[in-house]
């Protein structure tokens, strides 16, 4: 069969994360594509958790840890995002004080809510702003593992299955914990959900 010119970049794009990671064990350069796909997302998440001072370093630590443990990646999982988030969560956990400081800073000076979170649902944005103090209090009072789960779902947008994989727990545990958080939040908001009220 005659050789056909192949666009290596296009080939990499077609490969799953699992395949790229498996290949990267023998050919480390394959890991670059995994980074290209997910660094942006992980950086944004780490930044949201720890602030700008640590975001760059912790993101680098996350990918270094991922690179070092790539030979243990479960190739039955085609999407590496949960794995990377799991590593990022552990890296973030070693900066608890910085995280707590940043959260306090955010609570003291609430940032602008990202428009894409709510689209044109301006009433919900207003409601969300209104209950920020209560939500912050709930977040602060959560157990660490519950807070990690909540933020993976609410901030990183992971599904229940992805969150379970990231944290190494079962999907039913995810559901159970989130229900507990819902009840706690509802209670903190006076037993009602302001998002369901007219803005």
């Amino acid at each position, binding site marked *: 069969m005659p050789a056909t010119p192949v666009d290596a970049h296009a080939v990499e794009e077609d490969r799953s994360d699992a395949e790229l990671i498996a290949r990267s064990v023998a050919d480390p350069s394959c890991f670059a594509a995994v980074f290209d796909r997910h660094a942006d997302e992980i950086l944004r998440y780490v930044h949201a958790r720890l602030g*700008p001072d640590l975001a*760059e370093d912790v993101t680098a630590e996350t990918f270094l*840890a991922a690179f070092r443990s790539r030979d243990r990646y479960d190739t039955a999982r085609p999407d590496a995002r949960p794995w990377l988030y799991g590593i990022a969560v552990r890296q973030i*956990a070693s900066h608890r004080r910085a995280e707590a400081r940043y959260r306090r800073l955010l609570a003291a000076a609430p940032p602008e809510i990202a428009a894409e979170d709510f689209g044109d649902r301006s009433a919900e*944005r207003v409601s*969300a702003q209104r209950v920020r103090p209560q939500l912050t209090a709930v977040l602060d009072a959560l157990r660490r593992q519950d807070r990690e789960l*909540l933020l993976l779902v609410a901030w990183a947008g992971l599904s229940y299955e992805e969150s379970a994989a990231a944290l190494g727990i079962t999907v039913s545990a995810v559901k159970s914990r989130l229900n507990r958080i819902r009840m706690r939040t*509802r209670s903190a908001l006076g037993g009602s959900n302001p998002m369901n009220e007219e803005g």
Partner: protein
Amino acid sequence: MDEITMFTALRPSPPAGVNAMRAAVLERVEDVLRDADPAAPARARRTRVPRRWHRLLVAGGIITAAAAAALVVPAVLPGGTNGTIITKAWAVERNADGSVTFSVSKQFDDPAGLRRALKADGVSAFVVVNRLIVGESYAYDACNYVNLDLEPDAIQKAVVTLGGHVDAPSDQVTWPTWTLHPAAMPRGSALLIASWLPSNRATNNAGAMIPLVLRTDRLPVCTPNKPPS
């Protein structure tokens, strides 16, 4: 709206500089992967790796694998102390399960004290400090340890894990915190812990390299390091 989704309201927006941050990290990772590629020209690998990323490479164990365990560390000092201790230079905390968590600060200048504290918690370690020349990737006032006699990877992973919490002020734990498991250390083995410190201490780029488990409790022979020509 679901209560869980409401917490999106607490997520801070990315700062204006996030694109530059992302680009910087991307550039570093590209350098790392290029450096780890044995097919890349040696001179290009050496000159392209930023100083901090070089440190991260070593911390990640990548350079040790890619460069045949050629490490750069200076001399070792003696020491002696005990328990859960926090100093300006380092912090050591003994955990209930017998493991020991430690971190160093950007003011790390007491390798002997850290060595003593670890020794008191059952960890035999060589602790050394690398003085990095700001703007360069290599420490010139150090020595090379080549062909280190290391325990197998499984033992490395059993003895040393990244992470853990030291209950100390944040400026005492400015770089990765490591948890050591003395019970997993084979008899006669010792750790080699190198910290990287800018010569002028003007940045936050201090940090402890991943502790490596040596097969022997003797410090490897030091070969004086020379700047790349």
